[in-house]
């Protein structure tokens, strides 16, 4: 697998504040990579450095093996979709899409053909003569996508492309972007703070926190084997405790069972509260773990008999889904 772009020890400082802290990252060619993390973790800053809109304080960015750290954006040949879409309001949809081709001095006939093809690809062929203001958010988003794709970019960069869309459209557009990516074979880097989006769309998922990469890998791998407490927390692992052999572990609420009739790691616990949710019941418990610490556990159980707060019970953790974590959890 070849590398489309790479960050090597890239740091970005704004005054005293370090927004991106010595990250190393290889972006695989022809794949969809997501940068995922909470607000302010440095996703946009990283993407903007890759696009050439800002320059790292230190470190190197290579594109197709060439050091491009100081290259201005117009020399990089990348397609970028901004969170605000940044369409040219004084141009029609077709003129927006043709903008990059005009600069590349593509002939009129070929330009028209490529504009039409790209608009068809995003399903907007019928709106080519409209002004952006007349379009819905979803349609504007597709124009921005078409404008970036039309120049046949070496990489397609998307900064939270779906965050301004309503929930249904967002889910629909995930599949849409995935389809466009596989049809064009483009290398895509997508920034998001939505873990479902990252899990569903990525080939490579990169989790960031405070300007550092916490873990990267295929979604399945990251989801089933979070490397540290931050990643586990972010992906919805609720339970953290030290087992009898002294290893710090985590497990998702759905892999805890109550009553002690199963085999696995057991903890004696007291029910703190319950929340009935139709198909399942969320039970919050308190237990003392292998290190003698009082820990709070959340079990997501089905077909449970009536459980009352204050009741004592045994919590069993399914050993197949217990994940060891690299740090002791002291973040």
């Amino acid at each position: 697998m070849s590398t489309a772009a790479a960050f090597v020890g890239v740091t970005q400082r704004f005054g005293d504040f370090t927004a991106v802290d010595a990250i190393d990252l290889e972006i695989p060619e022809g794949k969809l990579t997501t940068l995922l993390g909470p607000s302010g973790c440095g996703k946009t800053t990283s993407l903007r450095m890759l696009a050439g809109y800002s320059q790292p304080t230190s470190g190197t960015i290579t594109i197709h093996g060439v050091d491009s750290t100081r290259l201005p954006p117009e020399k990089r040949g990348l397609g970028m979709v901004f969170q605000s879409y940044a369409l040219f309001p004084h141009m029609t949809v077709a003129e927006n899409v043709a903008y990059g081709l005009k600069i590349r001095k593509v002939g009129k006939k070929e330009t028209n053909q490529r504009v039409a093809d790209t608009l068809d690809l995003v399903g907007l062929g019928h709106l080519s003569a409209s002004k952006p203001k007349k379009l819905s958010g979803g349609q504007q988003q597709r124009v921005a996508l078409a404008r970036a794709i039309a120049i046949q970019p070496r990489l397609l960069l998307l900064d939270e492309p779906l965050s301004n869309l309503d929930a249904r459209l967002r889910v629909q557009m995930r599949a849409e972007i995935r389809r466009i990516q596989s049809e064009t074979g483009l290398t895509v880097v997508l920034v998001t703070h939505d873990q479902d989006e990252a899990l569903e769309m990525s080939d490579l998922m990169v989790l960031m926190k405070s300007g550092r990469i916490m873990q990267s890998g295929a979604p399945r791998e990251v989801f089933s084997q979070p490397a540290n407490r931050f990643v586990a927390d972010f992906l919805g692992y609720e339970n953290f405790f030290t087992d009898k052999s002294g290893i710090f572990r985590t497990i998702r609420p759905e892999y805890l069972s109550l009553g002690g009739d199963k085999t696995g790691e057991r903890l004696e616990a007291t029910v703190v509260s319950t929340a009935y949710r139709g198909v399942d019941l969320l039970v919050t418990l308190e237990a003392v773990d292998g290190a003698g610490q009082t820990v709070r556990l959340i079990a997501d159980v089905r077909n449970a008999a009536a459980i009352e707060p204050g009741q004592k019970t045994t919590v069993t953790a399914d050993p197949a889904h217990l994940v060891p974590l690299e740090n002791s959890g002291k973040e």
Partner: protein
Amino acid sequence: MRGNGTRRPVAATLAVLGYIIMIVPILFVVATAFSAGRTLRFPPEGFSLQWFEAAVTYDPFMESLVSSLYLAIGATALALLLGVPATIAIHRGRIPGRGLLEGLFLSPLIVPELVVGLALYQQLMIGLGLDNLTTLLLGHTALLLPYAVRVTGASLALADPAVEEAARGLGASPVRAFLTVTLPLLRPGIFSAGLLGFVTSFNNVPLSLLLQDREFRTLPVTMLDYVQQSYNPRIAAMATLILAATVVIAVIAERTVGFAKIFGGINR
């Protein structure tokens, strides 16, 4: 609009009153311009166009009209030429102390014009020995700069900076991105600033009064001189002609960019 009027009777009444106070005196002037008599009096005595003829054939009016237009166009062009790049630098650049810089460009709004005029008179005309026309042109330019900076600044603040970045990403050089994307977005703002500047310069009295001489006088100053000496409908006819021209400009402005845009820009 009608909904507002019915729901807020006080505001609606005040607005109507405001219009009446502004428009009625203008109507008096317009009416007297059509008088067949020899004095400025209302109601006018008879109807004729003689005073319009008297106005357009009166050399001092026509000469000073040309001077005023010349001055207004020159000062507006200069103010835009200086003000627009300055605004862009203030809003988009990474210059330290940009608040201070913007304050500097806006300061002519606050300093009384007579003080500005006197300063220019002392420094430029006496000190540097510049002639009246140059000094007036510079004075008016300074007067119009705040409009150029404020109005174009308002439309620049409304424009998404990512739009220019998008153009760069698509391959445009900084200059090309500016010319093909940023400038077209600023056009209504620049147009409004120009219009406002033109009208402000054209109507200005204090600066022009201080810096005039016998060869170069602006129309408002000449008209002011005129009413002090003679009191006949010629002045009303001239005023009516200016009014008509202003209405034409306003209609053109409304057709091309729209008043909401023009004055929305100023109030921000």
